């Protein structure tokens, strides 16, 4: 019992309680399903706050570890090992935070098979939290792959017209990457004799040439998930077709699993390869930043625009991580959170208008500010956060990333400040497409008569957005607590790199 009540066990598996209760509901009990999911996810969030309270920010090591031998195979011990440190705690909090918000957003949007929806959603939460907490590669892989399944259904059942195509593409794409990672994991287990990540990191000693192979095998999985250019082709499909809550989680958390993977595994496990190939990663990241921004600009569908903007934003994160210095990595981590909040909020916002108008084409909108001022203002704030306006969260992340990348550009890691330079140009392009989006939707005259009777946001919708806005301002104005949480762990990581 003590084992089960470990904080990390609880935070990971508490949603299972909800799943079990939901199993016993009837199909017709829609509201009950909603409330159960809501309460359970809120409780999970509460538990994650409890974890935060127990977390010692000054300690760079794993904390609150839960460790047990799961099973042995040959000479391996495969561990059930969960642990949390500065690199993962924010992402765990982000996950538990976004889940109830997403659930709230589905209150009226999802009417079909509500129970199943909530069931998949809670399962997804388990998988996501598990990914961020798992400290054993095997366990990590289990959670990693497991997240595919509920998401597949969220897209496939409750998605748009092309949902089947999108769902299967999502599944196969991500799986394609992760199986290569599986091989690399096995290789590591074979040569190093353990899957326990801290041990693997401590051992080191993988020959450089092999590090490169392993690095790219892991990178294949993560880069597809992120998605890094040019592996992003699944993203617009998945995002556009997913239901709102699915998009929120997809953008908010699932993509972070990729960047987190780079951070947690690629960099510390293969430091040599990371240093050697940082330029390539940074290059792809920068291309992603510019490409995503340019492509976003030409979209006719709001959701697609935001989807492509994720390519751009995640490019920033990757650039920060592969600056391989404390500044860049911390910026990268924070930007993961920022992107989760901002893009999550954007998807919520798109969902709100979609629920009203059942379209997302720009041409259908225009001048919405007039009829939906509250909605417009909230959108504006989120959009500005997304384009990195100082004082809002996006800026803090992007600035520290660019600063870190610039610094890395002066060292052999990247070798050129042009990475940071071009990435910074992405800031301009971000303004272009964000303002394009905002302008198309809210500014100009209200020409479409269908929009004239639109209702402004109701209280539930505002409540859905407000927590995100609070964070947008909080991180933008006073990010210190966030940086403080991750700083020791990141310093530790940078020390491993030995730069």
């Amino acid at each position: 019992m003590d084992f089960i009540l470990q904080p990390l066990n609880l935070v990971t598996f508490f949603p299972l309680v909800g799943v079990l209760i939901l199993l016993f509901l009837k199909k017709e009990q829609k509201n009950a399903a909603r409330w159960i999911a809501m309460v359970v996810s809120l409780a999970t969030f509460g538990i994650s706050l409890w974890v935060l309270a127990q977390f010692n920010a000054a300690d760079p090591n794993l904390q609150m570890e839960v460790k047990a031998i799961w099973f042995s195979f040959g000479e391996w011990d495969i561990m059930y090992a969960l642990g949390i440190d500065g690199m993962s705690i924010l992402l765990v909090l982000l996950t538990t935070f976004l889940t109830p918000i997403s659930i709230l957003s589905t209150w009226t949007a999802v009417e079909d098979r509500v129970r199943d929806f909530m069931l998949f959603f809670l399962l997804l939460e388990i998988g996501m939290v598990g990914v961020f907490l798992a400290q054993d590669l095997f366990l990590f892989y289990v959670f990693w792959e497991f997240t595919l399944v509920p998401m597949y259904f969220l897209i496939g059942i409750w998605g748009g017209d092309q949902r089947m195509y999108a769902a299967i593409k999502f599944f196969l794409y991500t799986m394609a990457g992760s199986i290569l990672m599986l091989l690399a994991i096995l290789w590591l287990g074979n040569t190093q004799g353990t899957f326990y990540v801290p041990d693997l990191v401590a051992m080191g000693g993988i020959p450089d040439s092999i590090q490169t192979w392993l690095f790219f095998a892991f990178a294949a999985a993560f880069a597809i998930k992120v998605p890094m250019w040019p592996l992003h082709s699944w993203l617009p499909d998945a995002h556009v077709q997913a239901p709102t809550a699915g998009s929120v989680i997809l953008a908010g958390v699932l993509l972070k699993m990729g960047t987190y993977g780079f951070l947690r595994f690629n960099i510390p496990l293969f430091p040599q390869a990371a240093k050697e190939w940082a330029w390539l990663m940074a290059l792809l990241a920068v291309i992603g930043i510019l490409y995503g921004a340019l492509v976003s600009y030409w979209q006719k569908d709001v959701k697609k625009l935001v989807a492509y903007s994720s390519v751009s934003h995640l490019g920033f994160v990757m650039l920060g991580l592969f600056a391989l210095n404390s500044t860049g990595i911390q910026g990268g981590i924070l930007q993961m959170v920022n992107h989760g909040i901002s893009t999550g909020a954007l998807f919520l916002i798109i969902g709100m208008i979609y629920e009203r108008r059942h379209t997302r084409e720009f041409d259908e909108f225009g001048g919405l500010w007039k009829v939906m001022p509250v909605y417009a203002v909230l959108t504006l704030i989120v959009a500005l956060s997304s384009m990195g306006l100082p004082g809002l969260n996006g800026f803090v992340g992007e600035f520290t990333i660019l600063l870190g990348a610039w610094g890395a550009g002066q060292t052999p890691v990247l070798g050129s400040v042009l990475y940071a330079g071009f990435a910074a140009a992405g800031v301009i392009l971000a303004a272009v497409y964000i303002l394009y989006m905002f302008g198309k939707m809210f500014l100009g005259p209200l020409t479409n008569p269908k929009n004239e009777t639109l209702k402004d946001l109701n209280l539930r919708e505002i409540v859905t957005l407000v927590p995100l806005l609070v964070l947008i301002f909080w991180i933008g104005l006073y990010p210190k607590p966030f940086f403080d949480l991750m700083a020791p762990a990141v310093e530790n990581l940078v020390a491993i790199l030995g730069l």
Partner: protein
Amino acid sequence: MLLSETTTTGFFQLVPWIVFFPAIGLLINTFMPLVMKALKREWGEPAVAITGVTASGLALVVSVLQFISLRAAHGHEQVVGVADWLNIGSFNIPWEFRVDTLSVTMMLVVSGVGTLIHLYSVGYMHYDVRYKGDPKSYARFFVYLNLFIAMMMILVSGNSYLMLFVGWEGVGLCSFLLIGFWYTKNPDATDGTKNSYAAKKAFIANRVGDFGFLMAMFITFWHFGTLSFSEIFPEVAHYSGPDGLIWWIAGFMLLGVTGKSAQIPLYVWLPDAMAGPTPVSALIHAATMVTAGVYLVARSAPVFNAVEGVHVLVALVGAATALFAATIAVGQYDIKKVLAYSTVSQLGFMVAAVGMGAYVAGMFHLVTHAFFKALLFLASGSVILAVERGHHPLEETGDAKHTGHDSHHDDHDAHHEVFDPQDMRNMGGLRKRIPWTFWTYMAGTLALAGIFPFAGFWSKDEILLDASHFEGTALVYIFLVIAAIFTAFYMGRQVWMVFFGEPRHHAAEEAKESPWTVLVPLVVLAVLSVLGGFMNWPFKEGLEPHAFGHWLDYTFAVSTGHEGHFPEFDFGVAIQSTILAVAAIIGSWLLYGRKPLKAGQTDPLAKALGPIFKGMNAKWWVDELYQAVILTPYEKLAKFLSQTIDWNFWHDWFHEKGIRDNFQRLARFLADPVDLGFIDRISHWLAQGAQGSGGWLSKLQTGYVRNYALAVFTGVVAILGYLILLR
């Protein structure tokens, strides 16, 4: 001094309130309408106005207190920390306010002019929201204005480049919001005056500048390890790093300056920005925000001083802009466009000044320009308001009726004659109908034209004086002098066209003077425009000499490491420029004053200059050029990438056709080779070769068991063959 030293130094701790007061104001005006609505009451215009003006006014009070304290502290700078902000490893930027003479000067300008414009807006916007048919926007306007004050205060008072950048982008945002304030207007305009388009344009052009700023910050940080002014400036003087590094910093900053202060090549957004309500044009796009670039250069004086060559570059950019914009201003008909290009031109003066290292002159012109250009814009707003009220008189009393009026107004815009209350060709003879406005406008005009003893004369003269001494290049002086001539000319042209002659439109005929809230700020600013020049009295006799210069020198001397020298007044330069200005005004009288324009008459200058005037009127086709060189290619590229590369090629062709379809084809083949006719063809060929006759081929039968057995057998032969023969 009324206050003791200890109390006055205590005022420094109040400095964050220059941001907090406006912030509180904007929060109140944002949320109170919602709260009151919930309470079934109304948060009316008076409440909004009082809140907004008070917020700004309190900021002014705090600024004044800072001034007092700083005087008491003999100009010693103070740094007031509020909280940690970014704290990453060695990178540590707190929220810190810097109180020194430079920042306090800016604070006073911003909050002073800002408060006046708030006051002005109380009356102006009352009418404007009704003419635009959206009375609910009144509160929104004050929210934006307060936000702007807060952001501008952060900009001028931050103790680090990063904090400056927060304000820098923040005011950019406010600019965006306020330009797009009437976001539904002019949807069909193609010349960039489409309001939402103008707003975007402003933001994006600014972002390009911001990009430069960011770059400058990155270089700075990685070579000085900090972004804090107090730590960088002492280092810069004896910097011994890679060559050209500081040059890059300064160069990138210049890019930022060209964005924010509307210099070549990024000035294009500012004229379009006049789509915003007039108080906005006055406050943001004339008096304060656009001078942020000038402030940045002045603030970074040590950086600019530390490297050769940058001075020339900055000064040339400024001077060229001054001249270029002045020529365009000559060809405009829109009253605010003229002032807009005038602003660009005057900003060019300032940038040229600070570029030359004449920081005091630049700042001096910044201050006086803030007075008289704000005045001009506000007065022009008053003119516009007057014309608009003449065009369709409003019932002053019943707000309730305005909703009914809204639709009428919209219809009017859409279907009837397009009346532009800002077009000078629709004015004329307004002198008698709106005398207060006229006289204050005159004060502003003379100040801008640089006529003794108006404020503009002193500050512009100081710039010209410095330019005449400038060792970098003589072009700066020449450009500036010509620009000054143009300035006088287009202002003369404007005054003749607007106030003299006969009304050319019934609206001008029935124009009404504006209410007192509009006029009071005009008068105050007019007084400042007249007297403002005396604060930097250039003679040893009379007033305190170079008071403004010495005041600022507390800052510049500390930061640049050497005392400023203040050039003696040069009568040669002064008289020369005055004569030229007067001559230009006379020239404008000859063209526009002597024979006032009639309705529908073409501009006499157009006849005289022909294509040149056309160029001036068309802003030298720079917008078109940018459209062709940057925007269209950008859109083409975006379209190409997104449709052709990303979707058609990468998504559809590569993934769908290339991978998926071929994959399925292969799968089908493996599962059912016979159906695809592949094996049929081989069999056909075999049959032809072996039998020579295909008569019996028609009897189609398939024998799969034998096929299967053959497969097994093939496997056997192959495996045995490999093991026995090949191995």
